[in-house]
């Protein structure tokens, strides 16, 4: 079809543009031009434009169900609702790579516009390094993952999209996630460029901070969406499983958080120059490594794309080249950036940021090692092990306690030097924290000293962060993100300890109880939708105060592909979620029913949104200069 040709040749033109930009920029750098030529800017614009055309072509092919296109044939079906035809475009390997390219070329254009007042040498070098990444991806797509392969003869119907992917949250999860994930690419390119052009200083920090916030914000949002989807779609009421694919999105997030704090120090005090650049490189390397792990077929997970190893080898080699390149550049140019020789006092914000990075990098190493150690063990010793929640909990939870304590006092520290004063207020804060913690422990019923310590730490962080609101000069970015983070930790801890579940095999008309609630299985109904049929169970929950809540879990049978899914019915309130699923069992008259109480679930989502709100404040914040 003509539209596939359009999409394919747009990609070819995009690659050619890439080569042109690369050579153009090289020449300009050699000539030490003082201004980026409009030719370069125009070419960058064209490059983005070509990718947009290609992307829209693929979407169009999905919408009209053009089964001469192999990707559409493999991943779509005429009976799919329009929304899922569109989101199905990026729900597969080839389409999602187009999304990668879209964001990759888009952020470069954004960078060109936003960096108008930055040194030209630095801008040209950023463009240069970024084109290396862009070219690599164009070649990867064109050679191994072409979304516009034509198949002949044309089928009349496609193979359909996995029903569990047909979901609104999962529809927008990739674009949001990729803005964060792929956004780290411009941070990488800019870091290498600033190293070479000796631009690692306050000005650069201010500029790159925007892109770090941009990536961090969308990555947080992407992870949030993924967790929400997992919660209501996968049916077990869980939202985080330490699954390798989840870990792979968490690692760049941890790195970005550390980087964010680091770059603030660079901006205020021109410290940690080398370390900031290293973090920029690590962040992008983690995001590329994540792409590799998820698409190469190396991991055994429900989340992975079905893939072949030849694609894996390409990304792996590409990643190695990029990391080696940055390693060489770092080694060569490390000394060219004159590091400010300044003493760091123990009681200072600088120290608290060092401690912040220390702990975050530790958490990052736990997640990284937990994820790739089984792979190493399998290859080297041919032993297969699993690394799951017990590992991560044991290594992360104990360290969370000192981490949140440091996090509580860090914001109170001044830059350079603080005179530590313990006043009456501190005394009251500590008492209040202890009281709150003991009351919580009492209500949960788990009289475990370790859990008590966790609550003490988390509540202390919350109170100290709230206390920041009373400052004369308020840093809303930091206040909201810290409040959000402490709320997140508290909600997760409360949720994990007070969740209750009951599983029963019952017939229509029967009932069972959970705590002071009675759950009655009222009836069954059958309904037919566009591309599935469903069996709906009607349940009535009578709570202690005789209020009635209605829940309707479903079993859906899809026609293309032939699959049955279980759809949970969830009633959310501020205090708890009521979560129910049904499943068919061999005895026709009975259904397998799982009913759960998930306390404070909505607070987990709300607190993450508050963290993101902090990010928005940060983008608009006008920073005060410190003059030394």
């Amino acid at each position: 079809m003509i539209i596939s040709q359009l999409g394919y040749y747009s990609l070819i033109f995009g690659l050619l543009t890439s080569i042109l930009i690369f050579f153009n920029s090289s020449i300009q750098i050699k000539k030490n031009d003082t201004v980026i030529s409009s030719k370069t800017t125009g070419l960058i614009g064209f490059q983005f434009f070509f990718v947009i055309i290609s992307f829209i072509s693929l979407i169009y092919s999905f919408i009209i169900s053009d089964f001469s296109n192999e990707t559409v044939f493999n991943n779509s079906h005429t009976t799919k609702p329009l929304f899922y035809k569109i989101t199905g475009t990026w729900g597969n390997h080839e389409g999602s790579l187009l999304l990668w390219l879209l964001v990759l070329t888009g952020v470069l254009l954004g960078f060109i516009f936003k960096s108008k007042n930055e040194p030209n040498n630095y801008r040209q070098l950023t463009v240069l390094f970024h084109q290396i990444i862009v070219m690599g991806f164009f070649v990867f797509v064109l050679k191994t993952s072409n979304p516009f392969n034509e198949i002949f003869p044309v089928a009349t119907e496609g193979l359909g999209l996995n029903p569990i992917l047909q979901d609104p949250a999962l529809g927008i999860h990739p674009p949001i996630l990729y803005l964060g994930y792929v956004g780290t690419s411009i941070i990488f390119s800019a870091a290498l460029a600033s190293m070479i052009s000796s631009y690692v200083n306050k000005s650069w920090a201010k500029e790159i901070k925007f892109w770090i916030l941009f990536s961090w914000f969308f990555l947080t949002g992407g992870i949030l969406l993924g967790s929400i989807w997992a919660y209501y779609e996968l049916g077990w009421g869980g939202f985080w499983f330490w699954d390798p694919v989840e870990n792979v999105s968490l690692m760049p997030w941890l790195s970005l958080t550390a980087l964010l704090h680091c770059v603030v120090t660079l901006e205020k005090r021109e410290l940690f120059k080398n370390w900031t650049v290293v973090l920029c490189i690590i962040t992008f390397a983690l995001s590329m490594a994540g792409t590799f792990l998820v698409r190469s077929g190396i991991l055994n997970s429900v989340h992975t794309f079905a893939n072949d190893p030849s694609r894996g080898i390409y990304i792996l080699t590409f990643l190695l080249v990029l990391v080696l390149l940055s390693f060489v550049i770092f080694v060569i140019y490390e000394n060219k950036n004159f590091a400010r020789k300044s003493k760091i006092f123990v009681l200072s914000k600088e120290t608290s940021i060092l401690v912040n990075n220390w702990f975050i990098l530790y958490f990052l190493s736990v997640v990284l090692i937990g994820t790739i150690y089984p792979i190493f063990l399998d290859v080297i010793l041919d032993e297969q092990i699993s690394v799951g929640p017990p590992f991560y909990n044991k290594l992360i939870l104990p360290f969370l306690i000192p981490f949140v304590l440091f996090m509580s006092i860090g914001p109170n520290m001044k830059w350079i030097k603080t005179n530590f004063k313990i006043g009456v207020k501190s005394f009251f804060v500590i008492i209040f924290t202890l009281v709150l913690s003991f009351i919580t422990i009492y209500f949960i019923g788990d009289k475990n000293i370790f859990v008590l310590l966790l609550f003490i730490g988390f509540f202390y962080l919350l109170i100290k962060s709230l206390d920041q609101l009373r400052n004369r000069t308020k840093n809303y970015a930091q206040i909201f993100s810290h409040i959000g983070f402490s709320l997140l930790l508290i909600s997760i801890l409360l949720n994990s300890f007070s969740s209750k579940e009951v599983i029963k095999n019952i017939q229509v008309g029967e009932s069972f109880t959970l705590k002071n609630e009675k759950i009655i299985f009222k009836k069954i109904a059958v309904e037919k939708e566009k591309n599935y049929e469903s069996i709906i169970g009607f349940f009535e929950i009578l709570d202690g105060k005789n209020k009635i809540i209605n829940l309707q879990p479903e079993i859906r049978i899809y026609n293309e592909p032939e699959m049955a899914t279980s759809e949970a019915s969830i009633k959310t309130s501020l205090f708890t979620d009521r979560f129910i699923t049904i499943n068919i069992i061999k005895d026709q008259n009975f259904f397998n029913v799982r009913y759960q109480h998930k306390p404070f679930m909505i607070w987990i989502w709300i607190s993450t949104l508050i963290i993101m709100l902090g990010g928005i404040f940060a983008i608009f914040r006008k920073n005060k200069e410190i003059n030394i």
Partner: protein
Amino acid sequence: MKKMFMKSKKLSITKIFVSVLLISLNLKSIAISSTYSEEQTINITKNLRCLICQGQTIHESNSDFAESMKKYIKKELENGKTNEEIFASLVEKYGNWIVYDPGISKNTLLLWTLPLLLFLIGGAIITKKILKKI
């Protein structure tokens, strides 16, 4: 009229039921368990991997294997076996892969110690940086 409607509703439910059953049989995803809701069983099954549906825990999975495993664990608990004994016997039968806790063995020593080692190294670097005089 109502009788006919009830009959056709029953017919369509049965039709759907049979098709679901057939699909489920092929996908090995039928729950056959009898009533159970013990916390200790759940504590164990949440920490075991399903060999048929390899992305799920035994607790989550409704596959044949998972259902048999739940019954097996219940029996073992009734016979007085401890959690550790049950995990150990399952590891002997199915290999280390089946448990989510990698445990401490010569294979996993590095797994547990490497992050801690890095933490200590990080601490040393920071201490040096803070104590450095200009």
